[in-house]
């Protein structure tokens, strides 16, 4: 029997959508510009257009962002994300109430993309999205897809206040998944390529960072007090991402046995490596 690859979200016959979170459920927060879960009936994003500050929710068509509606709404102008909806079912929507701090998704009427897939641009100076603060567990898992603007600048997805949570790269790769310390890769990497970054912390305290499915760092880091995740794109007061993001999934469990499957699902869709 001929099978349509599941990375398009549809199984053989095209009648049945299967999303990343259908296969690997239990995410604590999940943000994407594609549909991640069959039971999710909400939208992907709310967008503000620059021409008149009107806003509109943008959903999905065939499991992908409804680009036609988005470009129609933002015809001839720029579009900015006011809300990136959480598809996990936990209601952890990421919002930005200040127009100048909203990341961009449409430029002069055209949706911004990487490899033909929509992206959200963070400007490195004040763009971020806020999440109602939630506590990360002593075992945790985070994968995200994006590309930094230039060498030396920061690619980062979910983050908290200082000494809370963050997974990021500037010219090294860092995972702060415990407030007692962080780990970082020993060798520098000047790439500005499209990346899938994964950071996981096992219950025993071993932390691992993966770049495009390959482990690049593994370190034991003690865990003391559980702290918080509260944003996308900014760590503490002034450490902003200067990057493009497409998807973030976070679990309050290490997902060791599911990591390869989760990363394969993401890569099959975004064609990163």
């Amino acid at each position, binding site marked *: 029997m001929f099978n349509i690859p599941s990375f398009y979200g549809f199984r053989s016959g095209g009648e049945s959508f299967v999303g990343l979170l259908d296969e690997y459920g239990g995410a604590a927060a999940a943000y994407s510009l594609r549909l991640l879960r069959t039971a999710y009936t909400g939208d992907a994003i709310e967008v503000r257009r620059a021409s008149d*500050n009107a806003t509109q929710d943008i959903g999905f068509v065939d499991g992908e962002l409804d680009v036609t509606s988005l470009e129609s709404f933002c015809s001839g102008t720029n579009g900015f994300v*006011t809300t990136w909806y959480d598809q996990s079912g936990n209601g952890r929507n990421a*919002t930005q109430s200040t127009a100048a701090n909203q990341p961009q998704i449409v430029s002069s009427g055209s949706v911004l993309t990487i490899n033909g897939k929509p992206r959200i641009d963070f400007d490195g100076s004040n763009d971020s999205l806020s999440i109602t603060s939630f506590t990360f567990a002593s075992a945790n898992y985070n994968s995200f897809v994006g590309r930094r603007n230039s060498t030396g600048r920061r690619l980062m997805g979910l983050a908290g206040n200082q000494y809370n949570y963050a997974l990021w790269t500037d010219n090294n790769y860092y995972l702060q998944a415990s407030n007692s310390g*962080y780990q970082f890769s020993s060798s520098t990497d000047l790439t500005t390529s499209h990346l899938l970054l994964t950071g996981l912390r096992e219950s025993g305290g071993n932390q691992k960072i993966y770049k495009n499915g390959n482990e690049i760092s593994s370190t034991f880091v003690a865990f003391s007090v559980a702290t918080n995740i509260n944003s996308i794109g900014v*760590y*503490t007061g*002034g*450490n902003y991402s200067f990057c493009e993001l497409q998807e973030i999934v976070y679990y309050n469990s290490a997902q060791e046995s599911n990591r390869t499957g989760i990363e394969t699902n993401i890569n099959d869709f975004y064609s990163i490596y």
Partner: protein
Amino acid sequence: MQGYIYNTEQEAITARQQAADYMGLPLNEGDTTIYWVNYNYASLNEPPFYYIRYVDGLEAVFGQPTEFEVIVNDMP
């Protein structure tokens, strides 16, 4: 950076509202977007101060911005 400095938080709050009013924000009751720009606190500067970072067009509300430095607690 370029922007506008305020000595008290109340002054910064008032400025933020002036900018929002100029832009007609929020457009509708219940909208997510309620401000054009927001203020920050430069807590590591001595003395600390509040500020609004300049964005295109903001001079129409506050005049020409000034240049100043903000100390941030950098990531590793």
